[in-house]
C-alpha cells in the first residue's frame, strides 16, 4: 500500500491557472523531497492531500483513504507545517501547541505531556511560556514543527520548513527534519524549492514542474559519483586546463573550475603537481556528482531552482 497515491490529479484556479496537471504518482514511506520552482504546484498538492483544497479532477489517497471523502480521518494522522506564518501572537508556545494537540484529538493530559516533549525536541525551553509574538523567526518555525508532530502523526507534510531562516537556522531545521523522519520514524514529505536541502535530508525525490511530474526516484540515483574531478582555483583555470590536457588528461575549464575526467587514480597526482608547479591558489578539490539541478536544466528552467 503506497503512503500517498494520486491518479490524474488536476487542480485549476479559475479557468487560466493550472496548478496540477494530470499528476499521477505513488509514494512509499520515507523522507520524501518534493521539489519544484515557486508556483510548480507543491503547496497545492500538499493542501489537496490534507483535504484543505478540493481537486478539480482526478483522485488522491493518503494511507489508503480518499482525501475527498475522509478528510477529517486523514487529518488525525497527518501533521502539517504551512509555508506561511500561522501562529497567534498573544498565546505562549506551550498553550498553543497543547491546544493544537487537542484539536488533533488528544485528551487534555496527553496533549500537555506531549507538548512538553515535542517542545523540548524542537529545542524550545524557557521561552515556551512567553507569548509567541515575541519570538524570532527561527523559534516560530520550531513552534510550527512542534504543533505538526504533537499528535504523533503517521505522515508529516512540511511546506518550505526553512522559509525565512538564516543559514545556521536552516541547518538546525534540516537536522530536526532529518531526525523526525529517521529517529521518530514519521513518514515525511518536505516541499522545497532548494535542491540542496532536499539532497541533504531526503531519501526519495519527487520533482514537479508546472504541475507535472518530472522525476520520481530514490535520491541516490541522482547523486552518484560521475568520475569527474572538480578543481576550483582562485584564478588561472584556463591555463591549468591547457597544462592538464598537455599532460594527457581530459580536462576543460568551467568558470573558476577545471573538470577532469578520472577513470582511475592517476589524474590526482598530476593535478596536484600541476597546480603546485603553476603556483595556483587551490580553493577546492572535489569529486563531482550528478547534481539535482540537472533535472531542471534539461527542462531549460533553472531560474528559481538553486
Amino acid at each position, binding site marked *: 500500500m503506497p503512503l500517498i497515491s494520486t491518479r490524474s490529479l488536476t487542480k485549476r484556479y479559475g479557468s487560466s491557472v493550472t496548478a496540477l496537471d494530470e499528476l499521477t504518482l505513488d509514494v512509499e514511506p520515507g523522507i520524501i523531497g518534493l521539489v519544484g520552482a515557486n508556483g510548480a504546484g507543491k503547496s497545492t498538492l500538499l493542501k489537496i492531500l*490534507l483535504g*484543505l483544497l478540493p481537486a478539480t479532477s482526478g483522485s488522491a489517497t493518503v494511507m489508503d483513504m480518499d482525501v475527498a471523502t475522509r*478528510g*477529517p480521518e486523514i*487529518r*488525525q494522522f*497527518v501533521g*502539517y507545517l*504551512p509555508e*506561511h*506564518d*500561522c*501562529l*497567534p*501572537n*498573544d*498565546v505562549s508556545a506551550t*498553550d498553543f501547541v497543547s*491546544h*493544537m494537540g*487537542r*484539536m*488533533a*484529538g*488528544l*485528551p*487534555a493530559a*496527553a496533549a500537555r505531556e*506531549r507538548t512538553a*516533549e515535542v517542545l*523540548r*525536541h524542537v529545542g524550545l525551553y524557557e521561552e515556551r511560556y512567553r*507569548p509567541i509574538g515575541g519570538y524570532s523567526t527561527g523559534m516560530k518555525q520550531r513552534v510550527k514543527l512542534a*504543533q505538526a508532530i504533537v*499528535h*504523533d502523526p503517521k505522515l508529516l507534510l512540511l511546506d518550505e520548513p526553512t522559509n525565512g531562516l538564516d543559514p545556521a537556522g536552516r541547518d538546525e531545521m534540516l537536522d530536526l527534519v532529518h*531526525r523526525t523522519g529517521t*529517529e*521518530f*520514524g514519521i513518514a515525511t514529505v518536505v516541499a522545497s524549492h532548494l535542491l540542496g536541502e532536499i539532497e541533504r535530508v531526503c531519501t526519495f525525490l519527487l520533482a514537479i514542474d508546472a504541475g507535472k511530474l518530472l522525476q520520481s526516484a530514490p535520491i541516490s540515483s541522482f547523486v552518484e559519483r560521475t568520475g569527474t574531478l572538480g578543481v576550483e582555483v582562485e584564478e588561472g583555470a584556463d591555463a591549468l586546463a591547457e597544462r592538464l590536457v598537455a599532460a594527457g588528461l581530459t580536462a576543460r575549464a568551467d568558470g573558476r573550475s577545471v573538470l577532469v575526467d578520472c577513470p582511475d587514480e592517476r589524474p590526482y597526482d598530476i593535478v596536484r603537481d600541476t597546480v603546485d608547479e603553476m603556483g595556483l591558489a587551490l580553493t577546492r578539490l572535489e569529486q563531482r556528482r550528478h547534481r539535482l539541478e540537472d533535472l531542471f536544466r534539461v527542462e531549460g528552467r533553472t531560474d528559481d531552482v538553486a
Partner: protein
Amino acid sequence: MTWREAAVAPRESATGAIYDLGYQGYDGPRLGRRAAVATLFWASLRAAFGLGRSGRSKIVPWGLTAVIVVPAAVAGAIQAIAPGGLSPFNYDNYLWDLSPILALFVAAQAPELVSSDQRNHVLSLYFSHALARSDYALAKLGALAAALFILALAPLLVILFASIFAASDVVAASGDQLQNLPQIIGSPAIHAVPLAALGLAIATFTPRRAYATGGIIAVYLVTGAVGSILSEAGRGRLSQVAPLLNPWVLLDGTRDWLVGNTIPDSPVPRAHLDLWVFGVLTAAFTMIAIGAVLWRYRRIAA
C-alpha cells in the same frame, strides 16, 4: 524502559548531565472530531472573557460585565434599605435598558474570537486537524452565544437574589420569584443567539479587528437610526412598522412573545403586529446570519 526510568538514566557514556529521552510515540486514545469541537468551544468561551490571556484582554469583557451588573445591584441595595420602593428594573426591561452593553460586548469580543485566527492564518492549522470548517464556525458561534448568555443572565440573577433577600419572608419570596425562572433564563437566551450570529457574521468578513468592531457598531447604529427616523418622519403604517428594522426591537418583541410582558417604552406595542411576527423575523435574521458565517468559512482561503 518507561519514560520515567529513561528520564533518570543518563545516556550511555554520557559525560555530563545530559538526559536523552528519545522520541516517544503516542498510542493513547484519539478522541476525534467531537472532542476537538468541544475543546474549541470551551477555549473560545474562556477567550471571550479573556481567561488565560493577558490582563489587557480581560479589561473589556470584565468591565462590561461589571457595568451590566451594577444597576441591578444598586437597585437591589436600595430595595433592601427601603423595602417597598418600586425598582426601576425588572426581568422584562433590564436587557432592553442595558442593550448598549450587550452591543459593546459583541462588538469587542466577536472579533476577539475570530479575527486573529484569520489575520495570523491560524485557520489553516485548524482546518488541517480533525475539525471540519463548519465545526470551527459553529464552535465559535456557540462560544460567543454562551458568553452573551452569561453576560445577560448575571444581572437578572442579581435582581432575583435581591428580590428574595429583600423580602420579609424569604421562603415565600423564593417561591414567588422562582415562577419567573422561564423569564430569567429565556430572556438572556433569546438575546444571546441572534446577537452572536449577527456579530460573527460581520466579524468573519474581515481579518482586521478594528474594522470588525466598527462594522458591528455601525450595523446597530444604522439600523436603529433608520428605524427611528422612518418612524418619526413616516406616516401611518410605515411609522408603526419602521422600528422593526432595528434588531433590538425584534429581540424585545420575541422576548415579549415567548417569556415576558410588554415594556411601556418599547416600540413593540406601537407596531400593532401579532407578537409572533417578531419571533419569525428574529429567527429569520438569525438563520441568515448563521448561514453567512458558515458560507464565509466554506469559502475562506486556508
